């Protein structure tokens, strides 16, 4: 049972973000791409927040977000993108998919921890 699902094809980012969240008392699960992220979300109904990269193999993060809302019909889970992308068009696509927020890498945990905790009600 995890509160937060981190989806990124980079093991470095998964470690960095996961370690930071765990050190701050949060339960974390991981996905290695959009397809894996969907499977992990399906398997764990306790997940309240997905932190997700955009550019990933097999299934990108925006497609995954669209499938979370569409195929899975999950409107409750919050989705925040953590990506190097900063294009307005991509953000618009994310907004349309019901994404809650956007973070441009590199990850700065201290700057976002409070917001994450609010989103999951911790």
């Amino acid at each position: 049972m995890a509160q937060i699902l981190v989806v990124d094809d980079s093991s470095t980012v998964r470690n960095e973000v996961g370690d930071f969240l765990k050190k701050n008392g949060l339960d974390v699960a991981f996905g290695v791409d959009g397809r894996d992220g969907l499977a992990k979300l399906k398997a764990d109904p306790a997940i309240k927040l997905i932190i997700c990269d955009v550019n990933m193999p097999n299934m990108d993060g925006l497609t995954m977000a669209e499938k979370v809302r569409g195929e899975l019909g999950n409107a409750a889970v919050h989705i925040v993108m953590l990506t190097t992308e900063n294009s307005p068009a991509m953000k618009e696509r994310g907004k349309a998919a019901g994404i809650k927020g956007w973070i441009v890498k590199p990850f700065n945990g201290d700057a976002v921890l409070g917001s994450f905790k609010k989103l999951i009600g911790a």
Partner: protein
Amino acid sequence: MRDEKTLISKVLVLDNSSECRKQIRTFCEAQNLQALKVLEENLLSVLRSNVDLGGIMIAEDLGGKPQDGIRLGQQIHALRPELPLFLRRESVQGTNDLSEAEKATFTGVYTIDQIHTLQEVIETSIFSLVYPPQLVRGIAEMTQSSLQSQFKGLAVHIDTPYIVRDRLIFGEIFTLIPIESDWCRGYMTLQAEEAPLLTLVKANKTHIAPVEGDDFRNLNGILGEITNLIWGAFKNRYSAFKPVQAHLAQVPIVINHMHRYISFGSVNPQLCFKCTLSDADNPAMAPLVIYQRFVFNLNWSPEDFHENDQSLDNLVASGELELF
């Protein structure tokens, strides 16, 4: 042809005359060239290992006979045809007395009292692409911040960016990512040795656990994420956020592992940044050197270069959450 203050290139100097080497060095300094003296007996090992050369200056009487330098030049040309060779002639002006094959070996010829005549051929053969200084500075900035975000407590030093013509691969870990925009198309590569990177992982200087360094794929992943960060920063700063035209031209990229050589199908010089990461608290630890190269082999239109306005409302500082 280039920004005088931001770009240099390195040339090997094969010349036994100390007086000529002195004049060559003075000339090189004025051309933003860093002259590196090399002994003939060390030449082959230097050529096999040196990954950041712009050209070679060679004296025709290197071994005491006029033909020695020319013969050596032909051997170098066969080995490293991408490197321009500049032949210093002892007394004969020009190349009329040389065979066609010998003429084709050398990009430029000169006598020491006429060395200034090389200026134009150096501009066209070494510094043949215009790199906007804002671009060069911007890449250095984004590389510096990306490296700092992925290593804990290390000093990041970036040498003065330079132009290289060689195509040698450095180290064991090599990343390659396309750079696509409306004014440039090509690739960025990062190249590093595995051993010093592993040392940093074991010293807990990265975001992966020391034990995870035993899996080489995790070391690959570190360089991969740095590549991703720089690529994203480049796109956000220099691309127009417009869809790139479909069916764009591509050329095969060829890697020859035997010769540690990569070809992008273009003779264009590459823009190179040498980044050195070191631990000030542990000077005995071997520094990690990362070579970052940009090769704009598919499109290079610096006249259309532009930098996005970072103050736009939709551009939030890196690492901060933009809530929708």
